[in-house]
């Protein structure tokens, strides 16, 4: 009995010991359930409250809208509704402005970077072609252009193009200021003044940067007569005559014109007024039909006294006489005939561009070469010579999709120092634009100089890869 009692008591004790925590857990679960119920109730209560608020606001908005519609339908408009409408407009403006707020700083100044790499193979060496790149296989980082532009104040904008390219001799990167100019934006009389270093307006493509050309290389005539891009340190004034027809007139003055003109720029000790370069351009435009356009222009460049720039840069002219450029005269005529369909011009277009240049330079011939030394001496045998030469290019380009276009460039130039030395080139090319900022161009060029030039015929294949990052404007000149 005792044993049974002991066993019974101990069992009861054990049960009590095990059931006590179970009891407390049950209570805890109940409490949690209650808390959850409470939270759900609170949540539903808040949700209902918010729904009521939303419904009330929606109702109010509907009322305001219907009031306004009624006010519009029944004249005169109710002042209160107009005020409410204006207040609402103001609020919306604030939201819109807030969303715009951070963005202008991202583009002030607008900064863009353009890269351009040329992969090429030329069949002849540079000795035979006169080129500044070697024959055979070549990879040339032609340019890395940093473009910066912004308004200076309400009256002017400023821009700069800093270019880094591989030196043709050493391969080392050299950096230079291609353009850095100030341009007015609010001169009276339809005038616009540009000053600083810039590409002067001459012809059609001379003031276009390399990567924006419609083909890989700058036409021969522009290299021969202008010296690459029409870079100048000077000032340029453009005028839009106040007439219904588009005409643009430009005049400029600068102490040089062209990146690498035949007679390098020697500043000397003193530059007279007639030692400066003067240029001008007159252009116009016609809408032949809504889809067909014609642009035409004439240009002129004059440097009255090149010798005033100091120094002598004699070279051997026709007849074997050393000659020095004394006066630079260049005239050009150009046109662009284009098909730009209104409806799908991003997918289809055609351009035929042509530019003819006539150089009429004056030279000083120096048979005994006495002017070519380090201390030039007039020996009395010098005489003046006038050399006229012609050059030009014509190209056609057809675009048949947003990505693909192809064309043909025909190029011809006589040497401005010796018109007997002629070079002719033709270049078919095809362009694939992966996007607006990423473009590949493949071009074949056959160069055929005549015997007088002393150069040899050459075949070349170029693959140009150009890309843009950052800000990129659609400029008037690149249209």
């Amino acid at each position, binding site marked *: 009995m005792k044993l049974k009692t002991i066993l019974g008591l101990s069992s009861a004790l054990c049960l009590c010991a095990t059931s006590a925590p179970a009891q407390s857990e049950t209570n805890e679960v109940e409490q949690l359930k209650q808390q959850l119920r409470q939270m759900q109730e609170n949540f539903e209560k808040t949700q209902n409250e918010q729904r009521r608020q939303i419904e009330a606001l929606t109702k109010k908005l509907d009322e305001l809208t219907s009031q306004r*519609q009624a006010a*519009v*339908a029944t*004249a005169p*408009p109710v002042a209160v509704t107009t005020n409410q409408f204006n207040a609402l*407009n103001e609020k*919306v*403006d604030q*939201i*819109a402005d807030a*969303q*715009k707020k951070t*963005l202008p700083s*991202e*583009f002030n100044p607008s900064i863009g970077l353009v890269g351009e790499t040329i992969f090429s193979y030329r069949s002849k060496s540079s000795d035979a072609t006169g080129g500044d790149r070697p024959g055979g296989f070549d990879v040339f980082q032609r340019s890395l252009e940093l473009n910066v532009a912004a308004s200076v104040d309400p009256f002017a904008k400023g821009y700069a193009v800093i270019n880094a390219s591989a030196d043709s001799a050493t391969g080392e990167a050299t950096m230079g200021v291609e353009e850095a100019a100030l341009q007015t*934006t*609010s*001169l009276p009389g*339809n*005038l*616009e003044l540009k000053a600083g270093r810039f590409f002067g307006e001459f012809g059609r493509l001379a003031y276009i940067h390399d990567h924006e050309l419609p083909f890989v290389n700058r036409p021969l005539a522009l290299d021969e007569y202008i010296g690459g891009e029409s870079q100048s340190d000077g000032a340029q004034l453009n005028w*839009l005559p*106040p*007439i*219904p*027809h*588009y005409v*643009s007139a430009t005049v400029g003055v600068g102490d040089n014109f062209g990146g690498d003109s035949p007679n390098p720029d020697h500043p000397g000790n003193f530059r007279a007024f007639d030692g400066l370069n003067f240029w001008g351009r007159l252009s116009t*435009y*016609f*809408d032949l039909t*809504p889809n067909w*356009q014609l*642009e035409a222009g004439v240009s002129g460049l004059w440097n009255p006294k090149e010798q005033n720039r100091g120094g002598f840069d004699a070279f051997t002219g026709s007849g074997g006489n050393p000659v020095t450029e004394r006066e630079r005269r260049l005239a050009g005529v150009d046109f662009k005939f284009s098909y*730009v369909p*209104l*409806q*799908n*011009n*991003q*997918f289809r277009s055609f351009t035929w561009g042509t530019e003819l240049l006539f150089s009429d330079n004056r030279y000083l011939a120096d048979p005994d070469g006495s002017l070519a030394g380090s201390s030039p001496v007039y020996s009395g045998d010098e005489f003046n010579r006038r050399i006229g030469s012609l050059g030009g290019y014509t190209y056609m380009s057809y675009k048949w*999709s*947003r*990505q693909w276009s192809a064309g043909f460039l025909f190029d011809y130039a006589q040497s401005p120092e010796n018109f007997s030395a002629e070079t002719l080139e033709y270049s078919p090319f095809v362009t694939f634009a992966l*996007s*607006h*900022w990423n473009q590949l161009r493949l071009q074949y060029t056959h160069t055929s100089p005549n015997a007088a030039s002393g150069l040899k015929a050459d075949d070349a294949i170029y693959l140009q890869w150009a890309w843009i*990052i950052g800000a990129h*404007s*659609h*400029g*008037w000149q690149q*249209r």
Partner: protein
Amino acid sequence: MKLKICRFVTLAAFSAMVMAAQPLHAAKIHVVATLTDLADLTRQVGGDHVDVFSLATGIEDTHGVPMKPSFVPVLNRADLVVLVGFDCEHAFLPALLEASKNPRNQLGKSGYVDCSRGVVPMEVPKSTDHSEGDVHPYGNPHYMLDPVLAKTAVQNIYNALVATAPEYEADFTRNRDAYLAKLDAKIAEWQQLAAPLKGVKFVSYHEHWPYFASWLGMDYVGTIELKPGVDPTPRHITDLIAEMKAEHVPIVVREPQFPEKVPALIAKETGATLVKLPIMPGGVPNTGTYIEEMDYIVHSLVNALKK
């Protein structure tokens, strides 16, 4: 002789005084609108007091209006330039304005009428990186395809006209109110007609339709372009077709300035209906005004859904 000269000088001086005494805007207000919808709204509000020239004829891409030099003298003489804003015209207007040498209409000046003022933009990009295509930093600019937002453009045009020629304020107010009443009635009609379009999914070539879709409660699934301004890749087309099949998208919208080949292929592969819709008045025949354009769009979509 002296008397004759005196008479001539007096007459000339009197004529000059009479001319100077004329109201500032006795002649019409010269307005250049970038797109045809804005040109129409300006004519509606300005009435006989305005002479409106539109740079676009209606069939162009809103981002690809050709930069014709013949626009320059027109812009040079313009009192106002009315534009969509949100960078919609970035490909042609800034350069044209610079070439026009008209200080009144440059960015921020009184003649520069940005109709997006007061419009809350949709799809404002977090980044303007070109990996997202030719994005508009201020948001999607195609708000004119929502007629409720077009009323904001009407108000902006009205404000600019009143500021330019306050002597005609009464006329402008009357014209504006009459046009808004007409537009409100049409909006109600379009909303009723387009009730079946609610929740209907569609794709388009370019990202023209987020405001329109939001207005009618449609579901804008995506675009045929890979990114704004970037042509579709074969993989993108394949993915889009798969997505459209999975989501049972019944409508493919092609804007007239984009080629038909790819949208037609996608419509054929998915069994969707291909609809050509204008993005501004004049984009397709018989859509000369904004109301006619919106009429055409709503009816075309409703009809497409019935097929």
